[in-house]
């Protein structure tokens, strides 16, 4: 694993750990209101300043990290799982099932993803799980398509035919022979999509569809303090930087995974 990949994982882990342990690191409770110190600019007392209710911005920004990162990873896992299942079934059994499933996949892919995710998320009460389900419900489709294509070629292999000949059940073939072939591909795709998940989660937080007040996530912090852009920009700057940093790390990680995968596959020049 290349240098960039290691640095990226390192940064994300640090952010996540910082977020988990933030109650011990920052002397302020992220939800504690202090009407005597509202809208203070960054100072020694509050390193990143306070918001319109006197809450410490550093504390809130740190504590929001675990939710955002958690949601993205969770959504990736679910999308990948559903996509794998659908892709495996579709690619292996072919025929009518394949046509039907792929038609449905095409249908989902026909929608601009954020719009569909928003549409799904308003069916449920706002909260963490709603965001995860909404992102996953839209994102599984590209996994399914990719896996199905791969399964189509893998299941042509002679050893699969041999396995069938000796009487292996379909389930066994799928799980023991085909799935392991698809996992690296799925993982790479998940890695590449993680950056997008962070951004989508932030967007949904921004639009008010995610966690409810007073809990902070990066997107909701930007949205609730957006009016103070001119009067108190320190309220809006840190969460955005954090989102960008995390997405950047995820993107770099995804790139490294893909590069490594391609290099392993092609053994050709690539960087």
């Amino acid at each position: 694993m290349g240098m960039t990949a290691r640095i990226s994982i390192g940064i994300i882990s640090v952010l996540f750990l910082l977020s988990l342990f933030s109650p011990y690191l920052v002397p302020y409770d992220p939800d504690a209101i202090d009407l005597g110190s509202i809208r203070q600019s960054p100072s020694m007392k509050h390193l990143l300043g306070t918001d319109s209710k006197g809450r410490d911005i550093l504390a809130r920004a740190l504590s929001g990290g675990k939710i955002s990162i958690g949601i993205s990873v969770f959504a990736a896992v679910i999308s990948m799982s559903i996509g794998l299942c659908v892709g495996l079934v579709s690619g292996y059994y072919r025929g009518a099932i394949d046509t039907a499933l792929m038609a449905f996949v095409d249908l989902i892919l026909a929608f601009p993803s954020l719009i569909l995710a928003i549409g799904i998320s308003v069916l449920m009460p706002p909260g963490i799980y709603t965001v995860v389900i909404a992102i996953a419900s839209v994102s599984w489709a590209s996994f399914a398509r990719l896996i199905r294509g791969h399964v189509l070629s893998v299941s042509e292999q002679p050893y699969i035919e041999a396995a069938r000949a000796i009487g292996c059940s379909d389930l066994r073939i799928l799980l023991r022979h085909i799935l392991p072939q698809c996992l690296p591909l799925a993982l790479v795709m998940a890695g590449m999509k993680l950056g997008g998940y962070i951004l989508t989660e932030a967007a949904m937080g921004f639009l008010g569809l995610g966690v409810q007040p007073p809990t902070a996530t990066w997107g909701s912090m930007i949205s609730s303090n957006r009016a103070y852009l001119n009067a108190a920009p320190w309220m809006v700057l840190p969460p955005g930087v954090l989102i960008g940093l995390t997405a950047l790390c995820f993107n770099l990680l995804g790139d490294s995974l893909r590069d490594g995968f391609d290099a392993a596959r092609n053994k050709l020049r690539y960087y």
Partner: protein
Amino acid sequence: MNPCRPVVFTARSFALIFVLGLALIPGLSCSPQNRPKGQAIYRLNADPTTLDPAYIVDVTGGAIAAKLFNGLVRLDPELRVIPDIARTWEIQDGGGTYVFHLRDDVSFSNGRVVTAEDFRYSFERLLSPKGRSPNTWVLDKMLGAKAYIQGSADHIRGVEVLDPHTLRIRLERPFAPFLQLLTMTAAFVVPRETVERLGSDFAVHPLGTGPFVLTEWKHNTELVLLGNPSYYSGKPPMSSIRYRIIPEDLTAVTEFELSNIDVIGVPAYEYSRFRSSDRWKGLLSSSQGINTYYIGFNCARPPFDNPELRKAVAAAIDRETILRTFYEGRGRLASGPVPDILRHWPAPVLPAYDPVRARALVLSSADRHPVINFYVNPDQEVVDIAEIIQWYLAKAGIQVRIRQLEWSAYKAAINNGEADMFWLSWWADYPDPENFLFPLFHSSNHGAGGNRSRYTNREVDRLIESGQRAADVRERNQYYMKAEHIIAGEMPWVFMWHKTDFTLRQPYLKNYHMYPIYSIDKGTEVSF
């Protein structure tokens, strides 16, 4: 091949493009825009949904309609009822009958003179069962109105045209604030022939008697009103008004500072900046709004059917500090539901902020660790206040979950009693204390009628009804005072504050006044 050449090649082209780009920038810088002579530019933060006075329910629409239409009477800056199209009137039968004598020199902007028949048409149109007006309550006190609304009568019995310029209105029973109801948007007069010709398009092509005429409406962009030279009290000093629709406060403030807007409502987060700026502080106007902001309780079921718990919540919240710090003093602390402007009797005295007492009350109540759902609307400022309240109540041992719903779900939850605790405000429809008592606390108005806290108190009902019937204003105030004192004691709400509105105007705008009720401003005073 020289590997550096491609780099140089592209670097040079970049530099070229960059320099070219820089050259464009001065041409794009924002600067004051040209405007037609004598045009005032105002800002709206949303597109009006309709400009048909029978269907307008929002302040935006109402403020514009006030400049396009007239009614029988209107309000003056001191909130008294003064003549508009009705020159004079008599009140007979102890407030049960009104006879209006109309001017004969008022015409619609299509040239036709207004007659009493036009008013009868407009009122019947408002109440018509074939229409869908949500404002029927404004005129349903008239005799025979209920029958007409249900479709069992062809005309409203209580509205009679005695001659082309005399209108007699009889009420079901005397109702003291009736004249003030007639100042409302829903009671404006509309021309029958235009309404029948345009049908539902009248909402986007309104035509009235007002000092301005709507000439242009680019949805979500702007509206242009042109001065009406044949307005009955004279041509307005401004030749036209343009309303720019700018939903984003940041943009509106920037445009205002560039002199592209003449008046803006001051957004909350810019208030301190303007107030401390030497350039702007003299141009701030404020008006004590006729409104009350409150936390409502659902008094019809647990946990808030218990007045002790309600009092605990009220004692746990330091309203005065919130108003002073977070709200920057932009309001007056409420002593009861009736705003100070309208209260002409001694105010109730509410218990002070007492977190210790609050905690004790909570502990002694049935459920020692209550969990409450607090319903709020998506407005960021409301959510902020909700979080503050959540924190105060947590200190008293009450756990609050903030349920932030979009407007329609929020209203539905409150109106059908799903919400146990909610944040809401009530803005005056007309400037009479009755408007802050009857719709909000009379037991016949539970739910969407206005009494969202589902409060029931027979004594209060009786007092309010007596006040509505009484002809003498002192007698009315006695009834209202007793009712308000009972209500303040039982706390179906936590009475928070009466919000003060602030606007900022340009130095070149003269004669600008802020009014507590939007319909007072017909746009005929300001000038350059």
